[in-house]
């Protein structure tokens, strides 16, 4: 594929991602008007609604201007990472988010890493021992892992490994980085299980297909070691697994909301739930927009990575 074709492909994908984010940002801004009660009341929160405070709110949020102008103002401020002030705490939304973002990022990466580290070998093992007890067990476990909601699994893990066996702490996030990792292990397992199940399923399916190919039979006939042969098959099996990478990271991002609430962790997910419960619309808008952008970027990266691995995708204009 030539450089020009690449540039055109990239430009098209980036434009599509930006379009999606713009459309959704409009919906996110509209949340303010969808909330029950008047907009002034929503923005005032628990503060008393006197004519003066209402007037101040109307001026602060430019409520006298047309809806579209308000939206553009909000979007423009958001581009400079200015999301206004939280109704609940009165502090800057940006400060609150940046205080909670690191924990969520660590948790999502930790959970995804566990999912890959456990899912890939298990899927390969199941495919190599197709039809045997290991395979049936791995397949059954992956169905359970995919369908069980992380918050219920998290609670069971908490009870067995933290309260029952005492191996892990029950609450808190620890002080040193090593402690934090220790505190986040159970949440990361609860979070990663779903992705792990998906990876086991996809890896196993792709490997089963590859192991039937002629080149594998030939390699075996030549007397190559079993491990080397599995290595060949694995390299060709990774493409379909890579396709699902976006799905896995996205589902982990959603799962973190539930897991953070289950384990009482002060991350972005619990901030979203607290703000949603309190109707703290500016914070909800900021977190929703942030997650939308994150997901758009992840999908973009996966699309491009997939095209790098398999250039037919970009050339074929998704026709194949």
């Amino acid at each position, binding site marked *: 594929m030539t450089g020009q074709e690449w540039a055109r492909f990239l430009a098209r994908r980036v434009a599509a991602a930006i379009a999606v984010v713009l459309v959704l940002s409009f919906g996110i801004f509209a949340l303010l008007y969808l909330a029950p009660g008047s907009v002034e009341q929503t923005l005032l929160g628990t503060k008393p609604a006197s004519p003066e405070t209402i007037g101040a709110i109307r001026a602060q949020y430019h409520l006298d201007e047309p809806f579209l102008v308000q939206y553009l103002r909000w979007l423009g401020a958001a581009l400079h990472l200015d999301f206004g002030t939280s109704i609940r705490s009165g502090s800057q939304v940006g400060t609150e988010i940046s205080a909670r973002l690191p924990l969520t990022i660590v948790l999502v990466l930790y959970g995804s890493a566990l999912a890959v580290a456990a899912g890939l070998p298990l899927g390969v093992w199941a495919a190599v021992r197709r039809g045997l007890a290991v395979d049936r067990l791995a397949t059954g476990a992956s169905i359970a892992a995919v369908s069980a909601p992380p918050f219920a699994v998290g609670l069971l893990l908490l009870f067995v490994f933290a*309260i029952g066996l005492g191996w892990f702490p029950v609450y808190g996030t620890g002080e040193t980085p090593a402690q934090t990792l220790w505190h986040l292990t159970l949440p990361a397992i609860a979070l990663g299980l779903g992705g792990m199940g998906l990876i086991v399923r996809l890896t196993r399916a792709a490997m089963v297909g590859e192991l039937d190919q002629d080149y594998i039979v030939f390699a075996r006939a030549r007397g190559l070691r079993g491990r080397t042969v599995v290595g060949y098959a694995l390299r060709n099996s990774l493409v379909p697994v890579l396709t699902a990478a976006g799905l896995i990271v996205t589902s982990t991002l959603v799962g973190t909301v539930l897991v953070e609430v289950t384990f009482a962790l002060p991350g972005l997910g619990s901030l979203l739930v607290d703000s*949603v419960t309190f109707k703290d619309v500016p914070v909800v808008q900021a977190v929703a927009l942030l997650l939308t952008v994150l997901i758009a970027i992840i999908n973009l990266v996966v699309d491009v990575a997939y095209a790098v691995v398999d250039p037919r995708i970009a050339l074929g204009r998704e026709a194949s």
Partner: protein
Amino acid sequence: MTAQSPVRGRGLVRRGFQHRPGAMVWVSLVIVAAALVAAIIGPLLVPGATDQHLLTGITPPGPGHPLGTDQLGRDVLQLLVAGARTAVLGALVVALGSLVLGNMIGVPAGYFGGWRDGLAMRWADLMFSLPALLVAIVVTGVLGGGFVLAVLVLVVLFSPGDARLARAAVLDQRHRPYVEAARLLDLSASRIMSRHVWPNVMPVVTANAFLNFAFALVALASLSFLGLGVEPGSPDWGRTLADNRSQLLANPWAALAPAIAIVTTAVAVTIVGDWVHERLEARGRAR
């Protein structure tokens, strides 16, 4: 390639299920049947499940209360039986609702093509770029929560999947001789779609509803867990779990029991859903 690989793999994974429903499928069927029975007649079996006995308070499992009572003195087992209703019936409504809505959008899109198709599919693409549960949390939360709202939001969020599936299936039927014949007979488009095309599309689309049922069960339980589904104090599994989460040390069973109920039902529904999906889809392909 993108779409084919997992599908091909799933066929391999589940080929065993298709011919003989294994032990796993049987156990799952029993669990799903039990949950359905509890959902339909549960509240009749345990009429006083939500009555609070504050003087009783927390009691450990024992005679009279097999799973103990929660801090409001409610019997945990009775709460579980009564809670099946919102958990299971809500998911059923979501699966059926998104089936109807998705087909109302997807079937005409596939049949007419053109701008209707383009519009419907761009809408589906947009909805697909977002995780359903996240949107459900934000929208139900900001709009004020409640069970009916949560179910409605999930119907809207699940429908693009059904719409895409129905459209693809209709595209496959559109140029078949029987459709051309019906057109030559000057039948109206709506009549051709509903009476002639849809019956041939039905198996594939219904199969997807079973998978949606499993997803909806988990999504509704998650919303209730976050306090955005049912009202506080309602006997819903996710809600009971959330209400008793902080008591995990003092009274573990009140939180563990609903957690186990959610996990087993979700897994059982997925296994049954996969099995039905596999069978119905094979039938749909054979046509």
